[in-house]
């Protein structure tokens, strides 16, 4: 069973439908207790960093336990940004801090939010990117992006005026700034890789 953390931010149908489509056995989980026994956990995210963290805080302990136990986890969009320590979007709000670094605004002079399909530049081949090639396009909607202190966690970037962190990987954690559930067949491929990782 894959738990989709429902902390009240945004529409979970898309990610639910996408996981269901590929046989991932998703379940929308509204309480921290529901994470126990999950084979994998998806942290979606829509909205501002601060309000996401407000809502997510009650899951923090359960998520950390699962992360430390090695449960495969997938963060999407703001669900990736909350892994960092803090964000320029919501000064003073603390993120989960599992990835050292901060979340910054896209530079002036580019279209903000970045909304549309952009191509990946793969920095490090990982299992979650199996079947994905340099230049494959994914759907992005965001105004901020994560900047990890340890650059080696970055597995893919995209170009939007600056080199934007598009995907990171650390131990059993994988996260994307783009939306795999809105990125057509290539996005479903990443979700299939995630489902396969649950059983390896």
């Amino acid at each position, binding site marked *: 069973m894959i738990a989709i953390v429902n902390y009240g931010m945004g*529409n979970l*149908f*898309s990610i639910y*439908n*996408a996981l*269901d*489509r590929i046989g991932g056995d998703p379940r929308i989980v509204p309480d921290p207790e529901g994470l126990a026994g999950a084979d994998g956990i998806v942290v979606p995210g*829509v*909205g501002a960093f601060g309000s996401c963290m407000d809502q997510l805080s009650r899951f923090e302990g359960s998520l950390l336990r699962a992360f430390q136990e090695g449960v495969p986890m997938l963060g999407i969009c703001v669900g990736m940004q909350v892994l960092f320590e803090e964000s320029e979007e919501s000064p003073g709000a603390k993120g989960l801090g599992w990835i050292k670094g901060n979340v910054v605004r896209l530079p002036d002079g580019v*279209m903000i*939010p*970045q*909304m*549309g*399909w*952009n*191509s990946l530049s793969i920095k490090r081949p990982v299992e979650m990117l199996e079947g994905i090639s340099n230049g494959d*396009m994914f*759907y992005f*909607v965001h105004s901020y992006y994560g900047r990890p202190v340890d650059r080696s966690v970055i597995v893919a970037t995209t*170009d*939007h005026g600056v080199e934007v962190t598009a995907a990171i990987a650390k131990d059993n954690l994988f996260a994307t700034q783009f939306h795999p*559930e*809105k*990125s*057509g*067949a290539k*996005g*479903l491929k990443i979700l299939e890789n995630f489902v396969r990782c649950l059983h390896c």
Partner: protein
Amino acid sequence: MLARRIIPCLDCDLGVPGGRVVKGIEFKQIRYAGIPWELAGRYYEDGADEIVFLDITASHERRETMTSVIKKTSESVFVPLAVGGGIKSVDEAREVFNAGADKITLNTSALKRPELISEISDRYGNQAVVLAIDAKRRYGQEAGREIVETPEGPCWFECSFYGGREFTGIDAIAWAKDAVSRGAGEILLTSMDRDGTYDGFDIPLTDAVAKRVRIPVIASGGCASPDHMLEVFQKTEASAALAASIFHFGEWNIRDVKTYLKERGVNVRV
């Protein structure tokens, strides 16, 4: 670099069970193109970057029909879905988002009550609000209007509403700028002079709006061939091109259109 998007538009008559996709010229000579969720599925498989559903009916039960169309579509279509037609309140927008829409498009209701743009974008974000503008050329240099040079002479653009049946006196370019300041995240710009003509997009209109707002502009109205899409992408900063008939009636396949554009140097997702 963001790719230029190709967006099929489904005009939906929701007065029949399950709805049906229609296309006509000013509501005359209506042709039936298919069942909404089936067509959406076909376009998704063909490589559509996004799909727009517009409710063109005024029946009483339509909202429920639209939400069931979106729910059904989002089970098998994994690209962004935009939904519009008759959304007048945050509550009505919520129903559509909850059914699986990623964006809503506003037209008449926003012209009548511009606050609706910020009410929805405050709750769902700018990226979720597309302002649809139906613009018609008015030739001459009227004071206080945003004048655009065209091969046919200088003109300004007037917004229409109620599906093109009434005019507002509002300057389309000024309205686009106002809507951006209110939180619109994207503009779906339809040329009423070109819609249904198959003469290609209104290039001066698209160019003027795309240069004057800093949000994505979707060009619409008049597209009959991949050449028209090539022209709008080469001559304007439009982020996307929207078309209906050329896809509905099998004249062009989305994949073939994108290959055509890519071969000519346009950055598209293939």
